């Protein structure tokens, strides 16, 4: 018994890394299909897009993250754009971070290609159904200026076309022409959107954030400043599940695919934490 305790107590941490790697990789090769419950904050966003945005309405998605949080937030962006496409809602994207514009371009390219492959009778086009505003520095100043004049804030789209000549911009001047805003970020940029877009212009909005920041932003749902939240990879997976259940998406779902690995990794961590505590108490008793 004590030999096992001593072995575990002095175990090389690289063995733990190896175990975690195996536990994460295996579910990709042999999917388990862990059950998943859709939470209320996620359902609120889905229901708002489904019931409160009319056909040809508009959704603004801000991609305020870089590659470091991409695995958690990117699937959210793709799921939201797919949902908007399925309801014929116009999608406007932007980024208040320099790195975000490239990631937004990736979301647009991937979702438009996958959607058009799956729905040849309802083709989506960049500039007509979805567009991307270029990066403009200033965060709060940009959010405030968009409340007055979106075209004046950016002048062109991220592809260099004059916004006055882009069809999707027809009738869109400021937040009063945007039905819903979703900010995807792992930083305090969310707070800027809440304070300026929601606070000053009463823009209806939701939050998509990393699991690390989830606890920090729950309070904004309680106060009604945001009507829903997608938290981490699980939030993205829940949204993908809703799209799948309602036959809104046929494409591969990055969030859902990753949840088996997430669950098995969590189980491993729980076992490690329990083992660590048991060993600690055995050792303490031994010392006495």
């Amino acid at each position, binding site marked *: 018994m004590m030999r096992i305790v001593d072995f575990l107590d002095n175990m090389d941490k690289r063995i733990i890394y190896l175990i975690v790697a195996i536990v994460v990789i295996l579910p990709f090769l042999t999917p388990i299909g862990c059950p998943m419950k859709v939470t209320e904050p996620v359902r609120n966003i889905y229901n708002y897009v489904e019931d409160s945005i009319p056909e040809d309405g508009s959704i603004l998605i801000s991609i305020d993250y870089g590659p470091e949080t991409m695995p958690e937030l990117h699937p959210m962006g793709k799921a939201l754009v797919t949902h908007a496409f399925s309801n014929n809602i116009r999608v406007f994207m932007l980024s208040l971070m320099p*790195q975000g514009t490239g990631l937004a371009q990736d979301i647009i390219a991937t979702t438009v290609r996958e959607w058009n492959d799956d729905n040849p009778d309802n083709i989506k086009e960049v500039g007509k159904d979805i567009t991307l505003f270029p990066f*403009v520095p200033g965060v*709060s100043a940009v959010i405030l200026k968009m409340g007055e004049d979106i075209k004046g804030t950016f002048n062109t789209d991220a592809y260099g076309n004059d916004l006055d000549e882009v069809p999707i911009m027809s009738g869109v001047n400021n937040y009063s022409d945007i039905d819903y805003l979703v900010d995807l970020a792992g930083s305090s940029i969310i707070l800027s959107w809440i304070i300026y877009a929601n606070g000053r212009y009463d823009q209806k909005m939701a939050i998509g954030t*990393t699991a690390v920041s989830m606890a920090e932003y729950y309070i904004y749902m309680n106060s009604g400043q945001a009507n829903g939240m997608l938290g981490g990879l699980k939030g993205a997976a829940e949204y993908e599940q809703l799209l799948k259940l309602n036959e809104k998406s046929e494409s591969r779902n990055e969030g859902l695919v990753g949840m088996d690995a*997430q669950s098995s990794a*969590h189980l491993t961590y729980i076992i490690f934490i329990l083992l660590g505590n048991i060993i600690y108490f055995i050792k303490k008793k031994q010392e006495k």
Partner: protein
Amino acid sequence: MSISTNIWVWIAALLTLAIYSFLYKDNVFYKIAEKILVGVSIGYLLSVYWHNTIIAKVWNPLVQDKNFLVIIPLILGLLMFSRLFKGRAYISRIPIAFVVGTATGMSVPSSFENLFKQVQGTMPTVFSFGNIVILVGVITTLVYFFFSLEHKGFIGKVSKVGITFIMIGFGAAFGATIMARISLFIGRIQFLLRDWLGVIQ
């Protein structure tokens, strides 16, 4: 299984493996990948700021549109470089004062509005267990951070409840942090297995 033939996918995959090799021990491949990351990040940011700020917001309005009002922020921006000259560094206080003043003016009213909405959100409008927990949590946590009274007797007991709420909050945040870190690892594994090796769909 269909291994990628895209050279960029290979570069990304090898750099990912080079970074993860640090988990075994520090090595030259990790150091190369680390330096590439820093260099590429700075180069990318400089390029974005050059095209989206200097060209789009200064050069084009000034040269093409003849909008000479741009000269004012341009001069303010250039004054920041006075920090490079020891005797004239004080001049940089002018643009800094402008930025601080504008940002404060923008944020103070909105921040107050945000604070009031948060206070309103704490007040229970419906009698439910969740609302009671929120109310008790907020009050006891505020008492814990109230240092004008000694934490003894009734105040001591209330502050102990407050620290319990804080600890539960930390626990939830730490659990969520583990979830986030695993998600990042899952993202890389998905990339390696799907985009690089092609063993999953």
